[in-house]
């Protein structure tokens, strides 16, 4: 039986959590409400909480005046490339680093780790120059080409592979598997949870990234959702319903994915941190 003092403590905890949860949600609620208001309603004093007659004008204007279909397509292409390839390449490299002894392997691994410590913007100017030499500035390819590998994912997966007992592989070798078959049929399924975590981290980062798309692509039809909605500000100034409609359309796919896969999202993040 729960004592009354414990019940009182639970009540206090709930009150703190509910107030904080409301505070966390305010920006989402305000984004949706503002996107349905008229321009005057959005900046009216005293402020209005609800629009008189919810209007979709903000959404229609945002879609008409900018390149939303392109933003979506470019973001999806680059998010898929930045997720699929790092998962494949990192798991291969991680398996090799964990299991196959070759000269210089520890030096190469340390090299890989040290790249992880470098702040991303350090890469941008040289990468921009590289893209410019390859004629890739203002292309969708430039959005993802430099991010097909992930030292972090390699590091995380190596930790995992190293924790798996070697007996399993020795048995497979006796059964006549080659190293690639062992990697593909035996090792990969064993680190499934780590792979899911990496997919989620990469996807989220690729979807939300702003600075690189902003630097490399300036023509509207080559932008991502992130850099695209950033340009809405200069196009629409203080027409807040349009800006909020654009913002809402940009965040909604990721939020839907999050609600569907919330268990994987939350566990994936916690998981990669505790095992990393």
């Amino acid at each position, binding site marked *: 039986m729960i004592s009354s003092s414990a019940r009182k403590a639970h009540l206090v905890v709930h009150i703190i959590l509910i107030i904080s949860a409301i505070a966390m949600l305010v920006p989402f609620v305000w984004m949706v409400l503002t996107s349905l208001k008229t321009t005057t309603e959005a900046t009216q004093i005293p*402020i209005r909480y609800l629009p008189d007659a919810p209007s979709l004008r903000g959404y229609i204007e945002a879609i008409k005046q900018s390149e939303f279909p392109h933003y979506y397509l470019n973001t999806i292409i680059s998010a898929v490339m930045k997720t699929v390839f790092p998962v494949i390449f990192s798991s291969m490299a991680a398996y090799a680093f964990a299991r196959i002894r070759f000269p210089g392997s520890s030096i190469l691994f340390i090299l890989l780790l040290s790249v992880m410590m470098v702040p991303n913007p350090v890469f941008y100017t*040289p990468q921009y120059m590289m893209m410019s030499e390859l004629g890739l500035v203002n292309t969708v390819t430039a959005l993802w080409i430099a991010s097909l590998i992930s030292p972090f994912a390699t590091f995380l997966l190596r930790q995992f592979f190293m924790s798996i007992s070697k007996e399993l592989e020795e048995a497979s070798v006796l059964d006549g598997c080659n190293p690639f078959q062992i990697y593909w049929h035996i090792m990969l399924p064993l680190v499934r949870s780590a792979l899911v975590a990496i997919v989620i981290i990469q996807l989220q980062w690729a979807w939300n990234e702003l600075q690189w798309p902003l630097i490399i692509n300036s023509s509207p039809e080559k932008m991502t*959702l992130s850099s695209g909605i950033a340009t809405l500000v200069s196009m629409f100034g203080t027409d807040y319903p349009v800006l*909020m409609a654009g913002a809402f359309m940009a965040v909604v796919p*990721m939020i839907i994915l999050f609600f569907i896969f919330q268990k994987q999202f939350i566990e994936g993040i916690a998981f990669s941190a505790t095992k990393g």
Partner: protein
Amino acid sequence: MIAPTLIGTLVFWGWPVIQSILLGFQHSENFGTVNHWVGFDNYAKLFRDKEFWQNLRNTLVYVAMFVPLTLVLSTLFAVLLNTKIKGVSLYRVIFFLPQVTMPAAAAMVWVVLFAKDFGLINHLLGTHIAWLSNGNYAMLVLVIVGVWGAIGMNMLLVLAGLQGIPKSLYEAADIDGAKRFNKFRYITIPMLTPTLFFTSIILLIGATQIFDSIYLIIGKTNVALPSVRSLVYAYYQNSFIYNDRNYGAAIINILLVINLALTGIQFAFQKKWVVYD
């Protein structure tokens, strides 16, 4: 099997680091077709530049406010969620939501919320503060927005750390008649230090690179920009707006040195204050 990762890392990440360091020692003319070696000239100019010191100071002020605040609040919420209350998974989802929200989109709604005349925040507080055009308040806004976005993830990390503490330790303390606060002070905190340590490294490295929210919430024409401009923003401005990629490289190389030093210091101190098992 390591070839794709190795080649990709060397070409797209490894070589750029070297090139960035080289760019810092060069001066380019004619859109980069002519490069002179100028030694430490860019850095000499940087160290004489008042704006650089201000940007460095802004970045450090942001880090000094954002990191401890996020750590404290994340730990608080994690401890609250670790009690046996109902609705833990719902709270977790709500707190995590900002984490999956695009910073660019979030920034746009914060601009509306913090507006001076028609903003919800001034309305609720009954104030009339120019949040976005007063330098001190603008810094506070950036910290609030940063903390809002970071709590969910860091709360989860701390929660995972809390759940990793063996129950037997608390049971033993109960037998010895330990008070709740003492259990927190002498079991939870020491057992949590590896998690807090890890979390603080990630937060610190991320916070020194603040850019998105300055770009979108403050913007290039705002009078408050000089009092919040970070090193990464200054790097972006110099390299891609003023097209002085050498000066930009000098700025970002300073951040590289700072981050490497931070990582080094933290690893050196790790042995001293982190209790593993």
